[in-house]
């Protein structure tokens, strides 16, 4: 699959899909399935369940693409949010008899785009973005990266992370803030349109 397409999706596709255009839907799958499946597998850790999740996400996209609001963020960001939300739902169901996990971020808004009409996904990104993200993550201190991953991929809140790592909540918050701040600086070129 073309890497460029994996980070940037034409929002017109969702308009066509909303009209029942199966060819457009197939194109959307080509452009997004790799990253969504990679994310699903990372979060669920089971290939069969990740496939099931992928099917669930695309079914929802096919039936509810009309709900997509371009003003709230890029197509890829919406798909990632949807996938992550459904994955967290499954993790929460899986852990329902054990520790609770954080609430789904299903409704978490993609930030308003009055000044930033294009997110990094909408830009003409290419494989450099992947390299940049990997490099930025590798260069983070292990403790900060671990806190970010527990939150993003396992859906844990800061207090749940603190409990799991047996660290003070303040320490976890600081690690997440520092980690995100470093990533923001390192990945600035990804959405810098200038």
């Amino acid at each position, binding site marked *: 699959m073309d890497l460029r397409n994996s980070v940037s999706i034409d929002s017109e596709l969702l308009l066509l899909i909303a009209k029942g255009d199966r060819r457009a839907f*197939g194109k959307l799958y080509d452009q997004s399935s790799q990253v969504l499946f990679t994310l699903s597998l990372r979060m669920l850790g089971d290939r069969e369940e990740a496939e099931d999740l992928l099917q669930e996400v695309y079914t929802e996209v096919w039936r509810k693409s009309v709900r997509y609001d371009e003003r709230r963020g890029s197509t890829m960001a919406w798909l990632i949010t949807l996938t992550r939300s459904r994955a967290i739902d499954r993790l929460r169901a899986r852990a329902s008899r054990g520790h609770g996990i954080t609430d789904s971020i299903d409704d978490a808004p993609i930030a308003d785009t009055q000044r930033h009409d294009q997110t990094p996904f909408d830009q003409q990104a290419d494989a450099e973005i*992947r390299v940049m993200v990997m490099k930025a993550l590798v260069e983070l201190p292990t403790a900060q990266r671990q806190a970010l991953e527990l939150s993003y991929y396992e859906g844990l809140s800061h207090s749940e992370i603190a409990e799991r790592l047996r660290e003070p909540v303040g320490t976890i918050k600081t690690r997440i803030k520092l980690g995100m701040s470093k990533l923001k600086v390192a990945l600035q070129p990804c959405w810098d349109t200038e």
Partner: protein
Amino acid sequence: MTHEEIEEAIPLYAIGALERSERTVVESHLLTGCGTCHVLAKEYQAVAGLLPFGLRSVSPPSKSKILAAVFENAASAEQSGAAVADGLGFGAWINELLSSFIKPSLQPVISVVLLILLTGTGWYAWMTHRQVADEAAQREQIETALHDASTRTAALQQDLRQEEQALASLKEEVEHRIGTVSDTRNKLIEREAELDVVREELSRREQEIAGLRKALGQRDDMLTFLRSAHVKVVSLAGAESAKSAGAFLLYDHETKKAFFYAFNMPALPPGKTYQLWAIVDKPMSAGTFRTDSGHKSRVVLKDLPDLSRISQFAVSLEPEGGRPQPTGTIYLAGQT
């Protein structure tokens, strides 16, 4: 939460690490239209949205499989929805329609006929629609499979190109290595030739050293004789055939050894040698010798008779290997 606390919470909000109550506060604040926090949230959510691209990519499941399941699920959902929408009192509606221009007595019959006609038409339309939908789904699956095959072919072609490039690089590397080995071999041959020259030089130097050692030994012998208190000197003068030649003999009574030194000796003809004689009652051979490049000879003599018994020393030119008695020309002679 103060505005500063909200700002600090935005990175955690973007990655989903806030508790529900905290998240609600942040979202409420964003809804107020705070520009600074909107920009921050936008940037940090963009960061969070990029995180999956840092994962090692995994190939997704077959496109045709997922899409077929999606369309099947969607079709099932539509059918169940349509079933709920039916039952709108069609009979009542048709009766109402017919009552305005058909006799009431015929209305039930006409209604039934029309109902059957419309039902049949509807059934036919539904079946046709399903057939068209099925054909469209099949066509979509075929197109999807074709697209997958094209994608795989393109991937294989790309792999092939990469393999060819790798092979070309490998070939170039091998050629480079062969060139390097050839250069090394040539250098080795040159070094071996230089080594041969050095060996020859070393051999020549060793010969020179051996000659010098021999000369040094002879000088040491002569010095030993000269230092001895028991040495007597006998001079030999050149005969008619070698007037400029001369020699002397240092004889040690204690050891019965002698050191013989000759100079200005004529060059030896081929197959000839000089032979030294000690004349007692008759000539006794004291040994043969040759001359060096300076026409000089140095010889240490052993087991000589007592000097008091020797009346004379002489040197004659003899055939190679010497003779029991003098046969050739006398070159040197001297009385004891």
